[in-house]
């Protein structure tokens, strides 16, 4: 396959992706802020394996002992399954550390670039092509 064909194929993919709903399936930059890296550690409260993006919710205990529920966007269920991430991996009550970026809205949700599970595995959990890599958190 020539590089031209690959570019063409990517362009077609881009058009297909672009035709999907802006409110449900989107680029990283539409929802999340690359200037607000975040790392949180918490306990899973809900894991939605939903197309086109999965969502993980976790309770994070702050330095003051206050518990806040955060939601993080994960990649599509199939891509997560390929990496060995299923409902069983992230059952309710499981500990997880997520590195990613906060939402532009400033609410308690964000984009999960990578996650470290209780078994020590670190997996790329985000699915957006335009997402930046992990940066030191500023939170």
């Amino acid at each position, binding site marked *: 396959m020539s590089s031209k064909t690959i570019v063409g194929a990517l362009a077609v993919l881009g058009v297909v992706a*672009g*035709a*999907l*709903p802006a409110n*449900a399936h989107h680029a990283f930059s539409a929802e999340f802020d690359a200037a607000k890296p975040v790392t949180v550690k918490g306990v899973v409260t809900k894991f*939605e*394996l*939903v*197309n086109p993006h999965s969502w993980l919710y976790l309770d994070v205990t702050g330095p003051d002992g206050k518990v806040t529920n955060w939601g993080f966007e994960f990649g599509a269920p199939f891509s997560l399954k390929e990496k060995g991430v299923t*409902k069983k991996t992230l059952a309710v009550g499981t500990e997880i550390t997520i590195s990613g970026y906060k939402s532009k809205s400033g609410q308690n949700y964000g984009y999960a670039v990578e996650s470290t599970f209780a078994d020590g595995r670190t997996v790329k959990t985000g699915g957006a092509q335009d997402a930046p890599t992990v940066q030191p958190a500023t939170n």
Partner: protein
Amino acid sequence: MNTAAIKNPSWFKKIGLTLLLLTHVFAFSLVTSNADAHDATKIPRLANGKPDFSGIWQTTSAADYDLEPHSNRKDAPPGPGIVEGGEIPYLPKALEQRKKNFENRATDDPALKGFTLGVPRGIYYPEPFQIFQRARDLNIVHQFGHSVRTIHTNNTEHPEDPNDWWLGDSRGKWEGDTLVVDVKHFNDKTWLDRSGNFHSDALQVVERWKFLDPNTIEYKATLTDAQVFSKPWNISVILHRHREKNFQLIEDYRYTLDYDQYYPPKPDQK
């Protein structure tokens, strides 16, 4: 009486007429019951003898406006509802949510965003859907949103490690000529109608599909969701076969509407 009858010839006439009428009624009933029997055997079937639901179907019910009995309002015609017993048995907290949904239905109904309708809403949503059937599965293509749902009829079980699917995971079995489908592993992002009736991701739907005649399906479903309802409840709708000449599904993919202005591409657009 016999003597009187013999003496009076009009009795013979009366008796004769009555007999004639009775014979006619009897003959007519024979014809009707024959026709019924004929229709019942005439329902379409696959090569393996199972009923073949292939075709384009749609309900005439007002169920999607509100599953429960309702009078007319500005955004809905009246309807008797399709819930057995009339009301959906909500848990108290869920009933509050349902009321909120109703208040915000003009903006919060997921169907307005073009989202997949879910099960069973896709069945009684007022747009046609098409069934393609073979021995191992039925594939339902909904006109709205291009959703495709597969009902597996190959004796397989639900997956052990499921996703939270928009249309759940459907496994069907035959009970005589009735297709019984167990559907579960949903997400909680769909509604049951445009009035705000809803469910959680713990929803389980058991459907019963049965031909009433070759062009009519009786669709029944039992909905169970321990997080939202106090007990299982049932719905029932009739589906009619589209028989208009050349009838077909037409794309109703709402997400693309915003992009229509760019198609077909014009030479001066970059």
